[in-house]
């Protein structure tokens, strides 16, 4: 048995994933807590007297975050007033169970708790949304609504800051995802430890340099009470690919996670590149780069029985909104008759129903507004991505994605999809007549 690398005289009982050092339990706790404290101090995350809301879902990250914040607040006299802030998305069998964990945390850590629910804020629960939308793109709704819900809940409480349990793995994934999506606007700010300082409530991530594995180890050895089941509506999301890459890179070179964060911090965007300008939503006054914020657009779609309204490129959403509201559509260079016809189809509700997909998403992923559109597990988005919609080519920031899963050829895909809709195999080929161009048998 190796001695502890910190020379405390004890035997090592674990190997730190971040550094590879063999340490004993107490030295691991000390190292973990000290690193979070250093992050807080070096980045001036708080000042004495701050009223801080800890975003708590009951998962491992937020549970450890609440524990650590309380511990360090007392140990180092940060002078903070803490409150737990939870969001009830209304997912039966998942969120109701995890909220019980947060309620126990409230008692265990003696931190007050405030719960905001989607039903109160938006009039819809996630269960109702999924019934309306289906299992495709539902995480777009959840992510966008949850982000706003946190902000709105925090504003109601009149807190100064929100802290979230985003860890180093999350930040690294987000950086790579924003590169893959070509999202220059988010790429610039996603590696910041504090965001939202321009107007909305600032949010910070004390776990920005803390490895997920170490959080799990800390929670395990400290026997903290947390909820570890994945969301029942989780998709095979695009983020899953990047997550797998991060895990594989960590296996080859453990410092790669921190290196990706360091790289992300060193990136910025050239002058002259078109960037969205921040404004406010005309309806709800939430920050938004468009006339209506994403939540309002999604809600409008839900309330009008058009759940696809907010899904897709901003330009197409604008067209669809204009048609619904009877406004004249400004013809831009790239708009074609085909895209206008598509917008009318949506308004006429004559678009074909969505194909079923299977999703999984990690607990604690707040989605933000990253998912203006959302990858599916095959099906329509794959067809769209291969067809390359008319005005898709040079859209700088958003692109279609699709996850073909383990489908090996498009004939197989068509068969599986249409079988799922109870169509006979011979109809598969008839269905392909409608598919333009690329495929032939």
């Amino acid at each position, binding site marked *: 048995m190796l001695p502890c690398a910190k020379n405390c005289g004890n035997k090592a009982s674990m190997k730190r994933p971040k550094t590879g050092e063999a340490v004993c339990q107490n030295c691991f706790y000390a190292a973990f807590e000290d690193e979070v404290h250093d992050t807080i101090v070096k980045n001036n995350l708080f000042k004495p007297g701050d009223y801080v809301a800890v975003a708590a879902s009951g998962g491992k990250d937020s549970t450890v975050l609440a524990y650590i914040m309380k511990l360090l607040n007392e140990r180092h006299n940060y002078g903070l007033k803490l409150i737990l802030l939870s969001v009830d998305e209304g997912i039966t069998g998942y969120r109701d169970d995890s909220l019980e964990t947060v309620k126990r945390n409230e008692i265990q850590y003696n931190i007050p708790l405030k719960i905001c629910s989607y039903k109160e804020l938006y009039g819809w629960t996630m269960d109702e949304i999924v019934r309306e939308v289906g299992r495709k793109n539902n995480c777009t709704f959840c992510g966008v609504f949850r982000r706003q819900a946190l902000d709105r809940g925090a504003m109601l409480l009149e807190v100064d800051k929100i802290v979230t349990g985003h860890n180093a793995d999350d930040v690294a994934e987000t950086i790579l995802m924003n590169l893959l999506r070509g999202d220059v606007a988010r790429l610039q700010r996603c590696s910041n430890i504090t965001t939202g300082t321009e107007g909305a409530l600032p949010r910070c991530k004390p776990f920005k340099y803390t490895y997920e594995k170490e959080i799990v180890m800390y929670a395990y050895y400290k026997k903290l009470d947390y909820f570890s089941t994945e969301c029942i509506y989780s998709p095979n999301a695009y983020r899953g690919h990047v997550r797998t890459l991060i895990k594989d890179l960590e296996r080859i070179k453990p410092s790669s996670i921190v290196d990706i964060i360091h790289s992300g911090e*060193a*990136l910025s965007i050239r002058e002259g590149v078109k960037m969205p300008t921040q404004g406010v939503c005309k309806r709800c006054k939430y920050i938004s780069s468009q006339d209506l914020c994403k939540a309002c657009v999604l809600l409008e779609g839900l309330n009008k029985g058009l759940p696809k309204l907010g899904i897709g490129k901003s330009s197409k959403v604008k067209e669809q909104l204009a048609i619904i509201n009877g406004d004249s559509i400004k013809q831009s260079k790239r708009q074609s008759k085909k895209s206008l016809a598509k917008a009318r189809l949506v308004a006429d509700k004559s678009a074909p129903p969505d194909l079923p997909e299977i999703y999984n998403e990690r607990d604690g992923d707040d989605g933000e507004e990253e998912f203006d559109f959302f990858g599916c597990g095959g099906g329509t988005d794959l067809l769209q*991505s291969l067809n390359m919609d008319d005005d898709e080519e040079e859209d700088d920031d958003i692109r279609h994605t699709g996850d073909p899963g383990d489908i090996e050829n498009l004939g197989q895909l068509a068969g599986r999809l249409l079988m799922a809709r109870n169509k006979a195999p011979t109809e598969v080929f008839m269905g392909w007549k409608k598919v333009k161009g690329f495929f032939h048998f």
Partner: protein
Amino acid sequence: MESETAKVGVGRVATVISCSECDSKDVIIKKARKAYCRPCWKYHCDFRFRKRLFEFGRPAKGTIGEVFRPAEQVLICYDGSPTSVALINLALNALVFGNNQESAAYGTSSNNLPFPFKFSIVVILESELNGSPGVEGRQKKHLHSLLSWTKHAEKCSDCQFPLLASCVEMSVKEYHKEGDGSMSNKTPIVVKLTEEGVANCPQSQLDEPEIQISNVDNLGLPFNESLDHHLMELRKSLKGKTEDKDFLTVLKLNLVHQIAEQFKISKILLPEDQTSLAVKMFTMMSLGRGSQVAEEMSFTSTSENGSVYARPLIDFSDDDLRGYLETLNNECTDGLVNKSGKRKLKIDSVDRQCDDFIVNLQKGYPATVSTLTRIGSKLQSGLDDAISSDVGNSKRRCQFCNRQSDCASDVLCYGCQHFLNDVHPDKKGHFRNLFLCNPTAKS
């Protein structure tokens, strides 16, 4: 893109695709919403490449340059990959564009602007000690094929394509130091390869001190055994394959830089397509080299001494270039391209992992590499102003990799510090002596 439906059996229909340009049914590649047959794809690639080269050769903004000026020397880096084979063939076809049958079929003529470049090809070789087993034999076989290609190129274009070779240990800066410790620019580090070698070589070439001339069979590897041995010892002491591969990549780039400096060649073409750039971006991000991604992803980048590096294949993915190679005659690719396809390599390093990720993601999401290339061109290094103001320069360079550094207090950038952290403590001094201009500077 035209498509027809054809009956292929009872209850079955098929969509037959024809070329977007000429309606030929012999489609070999589909890109965006278009399909191309062989001649059309070749023309398309040649045209786009030539357009990029003209962009590269354009006089700098704000200067009064001549369009019709004496031809400029351009160095083409050749690494044996299909991308580099496509690069040399595209460069050759750029010279003859408008003067051949295919171009004439598209209405272009030999009245196109004369091309302002004279190309040389440089190959960086590895010895048995610093490469894999059997590498010398494979390299020599490849060099023979490359020499045959240069002969073919001379016949097609009436232009010479001198083939220069160097060995990786020649990048060691120690070798180039004068007695007073300053760097020498006159030490020969390349060999010019010809079929005949020294025999039948014009006396004028033999008199040039910077170039040694040899034929492939007489080429001795390594060029300097002592340096090769030092390099091998250093590489063995690196802990992981990731650091080793990154280290080798930096050495090869440095060597190209030194060769260009020695021969006063200010323009270098790199064999990097969209796929390899996407992989490089992810690899560099994973190695902490984010501050250097912007200069490595742009169409052109300028080094400290003014040499301009260009990536003229930035508009093509590796599938596009494979399609292009299929359009060429055997003379253009014989012995240069591995027909059996890519070897399946073990994933034991960050770059292999990123390569595997990008290639697999591209299959499901065809816009992946083009999106990454496009966002790469929009990036710049977001270094803290404090770093640039500290040294009074707008860009501080790492002493080892010569790329932009993100560390104010160190001669090495964050990425290169991994080498020092990774190497055996006994070899750290060795590394400083071999590769840093001022070994006593803090690192």
